């Protein structure tokens, strides 16, 4: 991993068109928070990594062998739509 030191308002460039700027640094030690300003083309997806990890985990936990839907789910669905009609 490339590790760089930057000061407030300094940037790094990734390729020609992605810029990451240190916008604010507050706090010290483990509580320190760094705010980053990111300029990138719209085609580049920028995500907090924990959201990405959460989606990967959610997908893996949702995968299952093909099976019929639980009868209880279909019942719940029916109850709902009949409730809406009423």
């Amino acid at each position, binding site marked *: 991993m490339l590790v760089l030191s930057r000061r407030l308002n300094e940037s790094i460039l990734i390729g020609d068109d992605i810029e990451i700027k240190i916008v604010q640094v507050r706090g010290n030690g483990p509580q320190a928070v760094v705010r980053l300003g990111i300029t990138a083309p*719209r*085609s580049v*997806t*920028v*995500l907090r990594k924990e*959201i*990405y990890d*959460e*989606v*990967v*985990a*959610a*997908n*893996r*936990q*949702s*995968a*299952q*062998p*093909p*099976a*019929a*839907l*639980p009868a*209880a*789910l*279909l019942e*719940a*669905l029916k109850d*709902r739509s009949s*409730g809406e009609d009423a």
Partner: protein
Amino acid sequence: MENVFEFPAGLYGFPDLKRFVVADVPGGGDVFKQLLALDQPEVGFTLVYPLAFFPDYDPDIPPEDLEAVGAENPEQVLLYAIARVPESVQEATANLRAPLLFNPFTRKARQIILSDDRYQTRERLFHRMKPTPHEEAL
């Protein structure tokens, strides 16, 4: 096979699975579908049509993601969410943070992660319409 969709980028966590069949589920109508990996038949997902449970669901879909499935505007794609259906179905959830876009015209599909913090990966399908005893009395 008419209901085969190509996911050029795979699904998050399953980057190698690029072709899926969208199958009807008995009793599921248009609300529930199954998404089955063509090349790995033991991998399947339950899909839910989010507007059936979350009528206000209105994610902002980036134009690049529409382009990736060959669509010019949001009206050309169908949105589904991956559902988790545990044994206790009242606790079923939908991943509204990372919906799937299907373009029925190009047969391309894509999972996107919204930058919108309003939507979570586990939104319960049923808790909102549990009628309160008060409402039932009316």
